[in-house]
């Protein structure tokens, strides 16, 4: 680990906790907002509007927010701003749940999330460098999963037994420890670990990269393209290199198909549980949310290490292929208790996805300073796939039943797996 050792243990633990608390903070947003607003006597039409606004904002912000984080010099400051904005959005929801403040909160949260996700990846890259990034992202995913699982449990309980509002009060409060971790995430690598460490962390990295000899592990064809780009030195040419990179285009399509297959699976299955199990449903669905997070927490570090040792492709195949497998089992075995076991499989795909998205973004942007933009592009692909998934699967479920809807999701999963297998190149440096 040439660069990893430069990060102090204190900084590493700080980053662990940052991932943990940010996952906590994000848990209350999403479907729970609808529950909360319903309890605040909102009409269905207003709730639908507020949620769509949040989804739309998150979608259109992905790429601009990524570009913004690339342009900002202080990635930690970007992360801090994102956390503060999400805290403000939670506070608005908690203290002022009427139309305008809630719409503001939704827009704020959508944009801030799009800043925060690449900012954390950039802070991680800045701390440990390219060579140790896979392992670091594995740890990030582990602590995010722990935060998510724990927060889902705690917020589920206080949401039903204390009040819906208390969930957002807790969310806002948890932004404070998230912010408090940031000053610790500072390592020697920020200052002195060599030019290539800083590619992801400084908008002025270009001059440093220009001065440095091309790293030997870069694929020569790609290195030549980057060399050409940096010689011309323009923003456009770097963008052109990135946007015509086959690895980026293929992986973006894989990401879209992943979410097309994945996003609607749990909601449809959970809807069945609510129908069949009545009052026990909430416990079973809670288990369906928490158990996969446990799997992610266990698997992610292994995913990160294996990706560094044996390449990205075997793991991508594992993660993508586990989606159609789960879909087939969900279609064939509609049993609420078995569902928890089947959902555990989603932990495999989630662990792979969580580690591989930023890792492949780093692979395809080596030498360019477009790491965060690239994460934004993949984020947009994910959001598009997820939106389409709910719409298409909902339509299939209405017209032909839940079993057929699951099979439709299986087809998307198989298409994604086939695309990984047939078209996705190995992106690990040196291959």
């Amino acid at each position, binding site marked *: 680990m040439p660069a990893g050792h430069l990060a102090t243990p204190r900084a590493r633990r700080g980053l662990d906790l940052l991932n943990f608390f940010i996952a906590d903070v994000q848990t209350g947003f999403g479907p*729970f907002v609808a529950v909360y607003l319903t309890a605040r006597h909102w009409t*269905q039409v207003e709730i639908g509007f507020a949620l769509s606004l949040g989804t739309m904002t998150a979608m259109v912000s992905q790429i601009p927010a990524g570009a913004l984080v690339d342009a900002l010099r202080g990635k930690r400051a970007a992360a801090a701003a994102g956390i503060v904005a999400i805290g403000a959005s939670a506070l608005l929801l908690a203290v002022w749940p009427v139309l305008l403040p809630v719409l503001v909160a939704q827009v704020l949260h959508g944009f801030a999330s799009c800043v925060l996700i690449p900012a954390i990846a950039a802070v991680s890259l800045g701390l440990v460098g390219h060579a140790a990034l896979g392992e670091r992202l594995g740890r990030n995913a582990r602590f995010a999963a722990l935060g998510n699982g724990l927060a889902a449990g705690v917020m589920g309980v206080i949401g039903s037994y204390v009040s819906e509002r208390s969930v957002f009060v807790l969310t806002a409060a948890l932004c404070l420890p998230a912010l408090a971790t940031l000053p610790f995430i500072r390592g020697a690598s920020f200052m002195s670990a060599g030019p290539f460490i800083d590619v992801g962390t400084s908008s002025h990295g270009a001059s440093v990269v220009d001065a440095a000899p091309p790293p030997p592990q870069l694929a020569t064809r790609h290195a030549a393209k980057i060399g050409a780009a940096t010689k011309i030195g323009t923003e456009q040419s770097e963008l052109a290199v990135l946007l015509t990179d086959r690895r980026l285009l293929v992986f973006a399509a894989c990401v879209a198909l992943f979410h097309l297959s994945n996003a609607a699976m749990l909601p449809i299955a959970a809807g069945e549980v609510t129908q069949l199990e*009545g009052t026990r449903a909430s416990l079973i669905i809670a288990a369906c949310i928490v158990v996969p997070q446990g799997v992610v927490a266990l698997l992610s570090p292994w995913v990160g290490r294996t990706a560094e040792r044996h390449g990205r492709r075997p793991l991508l195949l594992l993660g993508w292929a586990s989606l159609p497998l789960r879909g087939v089992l969900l279609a064939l075995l509609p049993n609420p208790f078995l569902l928890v076991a089947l959902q555990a499989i989603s932990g495999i795909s989630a662990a792979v996805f969580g580690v591989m998205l930023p890792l492949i973004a780093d692979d395809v942007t080596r030498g360019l300073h477009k790491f965060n933009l690239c994460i934004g592009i993949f984020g947009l692909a994910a959001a598009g796939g997820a939106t389409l998934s709910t719409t298409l699967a909902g339509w299939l479920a209405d017209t032909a039943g839940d079993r057929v809807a699951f099979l439709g999701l299986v087809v998307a999963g198989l298409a994604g797996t086939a695309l990984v297998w047939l078209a996705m190149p190995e992106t690990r440096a040196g291959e």
Partner: protein
Amino acid sequence: MAKLPSSVALQKVAPADAMPVLGHRVVGPGGKDIARLVDVLVDGNGEPVAAVLDFGGFMGVGSRKIAVHWSALHFEPAEATHRLILSLTPDEIKAAPEYKDPEKAAPVVVPAATEPKPGPQ
């Protein structure tokens, strides 16, 4: 405060006489929390025909809406707890189709003991 025009009069409605229902928790016959009332379907006279209930899942995941005939609900505005009770059994709720699209005919669950309101066919 603006003066009330003489064309209208003020009537004070105490919480014990009428209760708000949108977003109200709905309990089962056993008194257990099971759903939330999220919408009311009314006929041409504004009379309630059915209520849309949301069975919440967990943190909003797995929520499922069904429409039940107004007569399946019992209101207790006079009680301090302001309970709203659904008289359907778990099996009856289980068999109810999901309410999805307000533009389409709503599948309304009508308890067998009550006559559905005669409405425009």
